[in-house]
C-alpha cells in the first residue's frame, strides 16, 4: 500500500470518479431509538489506506451493524493496533477489550477499481468465520461495505442482513397550497439520496420491481391519477395505467411481469386488477360494490392480499388468482386493518391497524390470525418489510412532522429516519441489491 506508483494510480482514479452530490434536503438521518439490551460487542478494525480510498469501508460496516441495534462497535480509540491481515492479529489482546468478534480487512486497487477483502474472527475461540474478497468501483465501495455487513450479520446471527438495500419514499415540502412532492431513493443508511421525480401534484405509493431496477408509482401530474413504471438506471418511464378515475396502489408480481393495482369504474367503485406489463391486458380480480384496494402479492404469486370494506369497515382479504375464487377475510382483530404487506416468507402480513384510537402498525400471523401491534405512534401508516423479513419500515408523525421509522418484527429494535426538510412518507424497502 505504500508503493508510490499505486498511490498515484489511485489519485488519478479518484479525480475521475468523484461521488455525485445528493440533494442535501432529501438526505436522511437514521437514529436508533431502541436497541437490544445486550448488543453483541464487535470490533471493526480500520481497513488501512484511509487517505487513498474514497470510502472508509470499516466505518460503513461499523455504522450498519450499530444501526441494526443488535451490535455494539468498539471505538477506534480503544483499539491498540489496527491489523489489516491475520499476520498482525493478536487475538489475546482483543479478548482483553471484551469484544466477541473482530473484522479485519483491506482495500486494494485492482485493475482500475478496488478489491475489498475482509475476514471475521471469533475472538473467544480464535475461529476464522468468514473470508471474502469482492471487486468494487469507487462508487461501489459503500455497496461493497453494506454487502460485507450483510455477510457478517448473517454469520453471527443466523439471519441475512438488509444493509445492501435501498428505500424509496416521498418527500413533501412547502406550505399547504404550494407543496412539492419528490419521489426519492436512498441507500438503507440514508446515504446517496437521489430525486427520481419532482412534481407540484401528489406522488404516491412507490413500489419496487423484484429486481430493484424499476419503480412503479402513482403521480397526479395533469390533475388525474396515473401509474408509471420508471427504470432507475436510465430515468425512462412508461405510463402504464391512466384510465378515468382512480389508478392506484401498484404492486409488482414476484416475477416482475405483472402489476396488481386498484382502478375505479365510472361510478367510482374501486376494485383490484392485474395488468400484464408486456401485453397491457387488464384482468379484473375483484368485483364488489365496496372499496377493494391496496393489493399485495403472496411470495408464490398465486394469490393477492388486499383491503376491502365489504363488511362495513376496512379489513384484509386474500383471493387466489384462479377463475371462480372468492376472497377470504384474513384479519378479524380490531375495527380497522388495511394496506397489507406480505412478509418475504409468506407467514405474516404487516398492516395499518386501529389500536386504542391510534393508527399503528401490526403484524398478523396468517396461520393463527393473531395480531401483534408493533408500533406506538398515533398516525402510523405504510408498512414495508425489509427483504430479510426481520424489520418493518413505516411512516409516522412525530411532533407534527412526517418521519420514517423501523421496528424489528420481534419488537426489540426501533429507529427513526428523518429528512432535513419536509415530511417523509410512503416508504418502500427495496429487494437486496445484486447478490453478495
Amino acid at each position, binding site marked *: 500500500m505504500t508503493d508510490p506508483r499505486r498511490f498515484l494510480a489511485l489519485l488519478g482514479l479518484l479525480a*475521475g*470518479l468523484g461521488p*455525485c452530490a445528493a440533494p442535501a434536503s432529501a438526505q436522511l438521518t437514521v437514529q436508533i431509538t431502541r436497541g437490544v439490551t445486550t448488543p453483541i460487542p464487535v470490533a471493526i478494525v480500520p481497513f488501512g489506506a484511509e487517505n487513498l480510498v474514497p470510502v472508509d469501508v470499516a466505518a460503513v460496516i461499523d455504522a450498519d451493524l450499530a444501526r441494526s441495534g443488535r451490535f455494539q462497535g468498539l471505538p477506534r480509540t480503544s483499539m491498540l493496533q489496527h491489523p489489516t491481515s491475520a499476520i498482525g492479529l493478536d487475538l489475546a489482546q482483543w479478548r482483553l477489550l471484551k469484544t466477541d468478534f473482530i473484522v479485519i480487512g483491506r482495500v486494494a486497487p485492482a485493475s482500475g477499481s478496488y478489491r475489498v477483502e475482509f475476514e471475521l474472527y471469533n475472538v473467544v475461540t480464535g475461529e476464522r468465520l468468514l473470508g471474502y474478497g469482492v471487486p468494487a468501483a469507487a462508487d461501489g465501495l459503500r455497496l461493497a461495505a453494506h454487502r460485507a455487513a450483510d455477510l457478517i450479520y448473517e454469520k453471527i446471527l443466523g439471519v441475512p442482513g438488509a444493509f445492501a438495500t435501498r428505500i424509496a419514499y416521498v418527500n413533501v415540502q412547502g*406550505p*399547504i*397550497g404550494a*407543496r*412539492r*412532492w*419528490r419521489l426519492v431513493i436512498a441507500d438503507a443508511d440514508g446515504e446517496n439520496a*437521489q*430525486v*427520481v*421525480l*419532482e*412534481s*407540484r*401534484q*401528489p406522488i*404516491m*405509493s412507490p413500489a419496487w420491481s423484484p429486481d430493484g431496477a424499476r419503480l412503479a408509482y402513482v403521480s*397526479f*401530474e*395533469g*390533475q*388525474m*391519477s396515473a401509474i408509471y413504471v420508471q427504470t432507475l*438506471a*436510465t*430515468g425512462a*418511464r412508461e405510463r402504464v395505467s391512466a384510465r378515468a*378515475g*382512480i389508478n*392506484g*396502489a401498484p404492486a409488482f408480481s414476484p416475477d416482475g411481469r405483472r402489476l396488481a393495482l*386498484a382502478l*375505479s369504474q365510472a*361510478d*367510482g367503485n*374501486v376494485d383490484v386488477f392485474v395488468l400484464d406489463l408486456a401485453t397491457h391486458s387488464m384482468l379484473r380480480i375483484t368485483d364488489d360494490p365496496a*372499496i377493494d*384496494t*391496496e393489493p399485495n402479492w403472496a411470495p408464490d404469486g398465486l394469490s393477492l392480499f388486499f*383491503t376491502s*370494506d365489504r363488511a362495513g*369497515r*376496512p379489513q384484509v382479504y386474500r383471493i387466489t388468482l384462479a377463475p371462480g375464487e372468492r376472497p377470504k377475510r384474513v384479519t378479524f382483530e380490531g375495527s*380497522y386493518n*388495511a*394496506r397489507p404487506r406480505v412478509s418475504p416468507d409468506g407467514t405474516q402480513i404487516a398492516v*395499518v391497524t*386501529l389500536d386504542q384510537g391510534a*393508527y399503528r402498525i401490526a403484524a398478523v400471523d396468517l396461520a393463527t390470525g393473531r395480531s401483534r401491534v408493533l408500533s406506538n405512534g398515533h*398516525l402510523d*401508516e*405504510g408498512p414495508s418489510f425489509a427483504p430479510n423479513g426481520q424489520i418493518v419500515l413505516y411512516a409516522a*408523525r412525530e411532533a*407534527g412532522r412526517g418521519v420514517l421509522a423501523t421496528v424489528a418484527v420481534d419488537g426489540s429494535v426501533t429507529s427513526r429516519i428523518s429528512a432535513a426538510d419536509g415530511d417523509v*412518507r*410512503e416508504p418502500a424497502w427495496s429487494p437486496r441489491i445484486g447478490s453478495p
Partner: protein
Amino acid sequence: MNRTLCVTVLLSLSLVLAGCGGKKAAVKPPASPGESVSSSVGTTAGAAGAQTGAAEAMAGSGSAEAAALAKTAIYFDFDSSEIRPEFAATIAAHGRKLASDHMVKVRLEGNTDERGSAEYNVALGERRAQAVKRALLLQGATDGQLSTVSYGEERPVAAGHDEQAWAQNRRVDIVYLGSR
C-alpha cells in the same frame, strides 16, 4: 461517470415535470383555499343548516343563490361519504347553475383527513366525490359536466393534526373549470 449522467437525466426530467405541474397548478381558483374554508366551516355548520329551508324557498333570490354558490366545499363525517343535510342548499345552487348552462363544467375533488392508509383514503375520497356528483345529477346537471378526482389525504387545506383540522380536510371541492 455513469452515475453522474444518470442523475443529470433524472434531475432534468424532474425539472420538466415540475414545469408542467406549475402550469397546471395555475388552474386552481385564485382564492386561497385556506381562507375560503375557514370562513365556510365557521358559518356552514351552524348558519347553513338554518339557511337550507330559506334557500329553497327563495330559489329565485339572487343574493341567497350567490351566497350558496360562494360555498364550494362540502364537508363529511369521518369515514363517511354521506352528504350532510346542511349542504343541501349549496349543492342545489351548484346543481341549478350547471343545469342552466350545460357548457359549464366542474371537477369534483375528493379529499380525506390524514388518518389511516393512503390508498384506502384515495378510494374514500373518490366515494365522496361520486356522492356529490350523484347529488348534482339529481339537480339537473349532466354527466358530461362533471368529472371527479380523489387526492385522498394528499391535499389537506388545514395543516393541524387534530379533529378541527381533520374536519376541514374531509371534503369535496367543487372546482369550476370554465371560470379560470
